[in-house]
């Protein structure tokens, strides 16, 4: 059987056309690379800005909680009656519950933030700080509940643990500052 193989037309590309095609391809790759880089930088800047605005909102709310705490504890008279002490502890419990809600709220928002890898340490440290604060406020609340049940020893124990959680919060804030500086300056966070 005779096979008839069709004859293919001869491709004739000149050097000029070939160079043009290569040039266009290189241009497309360069534009894609630059575009991707710009897009990544833009996205990361937006992520950092969102993280920053969430931290700012958290700090503003924490400052208000701090004002409530300082005002409450600073205005406690030395010689309270039993009814006065009970009313004071109810206010303390309300502030503790508010502090717990504020820290849980901002922990949820900041925990959901997507941040560039360089900022992951700062985000993690800030979340840790909020967790410690949340625990401290929870223990304040437990102390107030124990006080209402005339269990002053348990109340004091809860407050001692809250003081410890507060100390851990202060350490986490230090970690956050170090991590943030490292992220902004490049490189790794210096050791404690």
């Amino acid at each position, binding site marked *: 059987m005779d096979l008839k193989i069709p004859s293919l037309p001869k491709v004739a590309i000149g050097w000029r056309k070939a160079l043009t095609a290569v040039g266009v391809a290189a241009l497309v790759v360069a534009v894609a690379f630059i575009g991707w880089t710009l897009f990544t930088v833009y996205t990361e800047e937006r992520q*950092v800005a969102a993280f*920053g605005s969430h931290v700012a909102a958290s700090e503003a709310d924490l400052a208000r909680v*701090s004002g409530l705490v300082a005002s409450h504890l600073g205005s*406690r008279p030395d010689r309270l009656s039993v009814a006065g*002490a009970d009313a004071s502890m109810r206010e303390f419990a309300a502030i503790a519950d*508010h502090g717990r809600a504020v820290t849980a709220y901002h922990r949820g928002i900041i925990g959901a933030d997507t941040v560039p890898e360089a900022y992951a340490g700062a985000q993690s440290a800030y979340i840790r*700080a909020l967790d410690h604060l949340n625990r401290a406020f929870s223990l304040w609340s437990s102390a107030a509940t124990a006080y209402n049940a005339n*269990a*002053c020893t348990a109340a004091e124990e809860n407050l001692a643990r809250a003081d410890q959680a507060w100390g851990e919060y202060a350490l986490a804030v230090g970690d956050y500052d170090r991590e943030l500086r490292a992220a902004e300056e490049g490189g790794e966070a210096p050791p404690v």
Partner: protein
Amino acid sequence: MEWKDVIPVLAGGLVILVVALVVKPALLGEPIGSPGPVPTPVPPVYVPPPPSPTATPYPEDGPASIRTLRWTSIDGGVRTTEVRVPEALFLERRETPRIADRLAWGRYALADADRPVLEDLARRIAPPAANPEEQYFRLMDLVFFVQQIPYVPDNNTDSYIEGVLPRHARQVVGGVEYQKYPVEMLVDGKGDCEDAAILMGGLLDALGYDTVLLGYSDHMALGIRMEGFNPYYAKYTPKYFTYKGKHYYYVEGTAFTRKNLSTTSPVFQGSPFPIGNTQGSPIPSVKSETPQIIPLRSIPTPEDYQIHPVRLPAGGV
């Protein structure tokens, strides 16, 4: 390469973009175009606690227990006074559950409803004085008054005017525990060491003194805040305990020792325990132990509550 070769590529890209940005969101119900701000939950708002209702005072003209109190004062004379306790208050106290945690026993001494009775009694025993010396004698009169209330342990039914143990008396290892509110001690006219310390703490607090309860393993006394207390007559080194940087001197609430003036006389000569004297105490724990200090006002207060503001990331608001 011709333009006609590029156009299909561009058209394909356009189709992909339209599908990704318009068709898919439309099918899945997502917002078309760039995503808006992610909906966030409502931030928490501080809600202050509601004001507590004001307690209704006990009527002055209602039924009351009136007790005539008699004691030997610091000058050796016998003094008497009357105390009036509304019956409703006394009955309410008997029906109030007792507090197990010793650290909260200051609530007995400072109980709001007992306060008017204590303020009235304290002013009659120790009216305001013109000079510190007089004031000190009046303070001692008040201490002697409490020390002379007969000591009866909690497990003895003689300690209660009803002649039976109150229903909130707690069975504990080694006996019965029933701390008396000040008005209970006054109406019963008897009590044990913690009842005396609580009554004395309430009376001294009503006069403006800063006091604490001193809890030993088998005893309770009072600590009164003084600075540099060292009376000329003392043949002992006054004992004090430091709490939050303040000195509280030991005051015994019971154990008023007394003896007859003569074998034929029914008259007693008092020999009270002065402030700060622990070495003369017949109770071994008072001489050997460091007591638990129980402030009358025990309001839990955190040591640390400072919020540390942090630096915001660059680009933050």
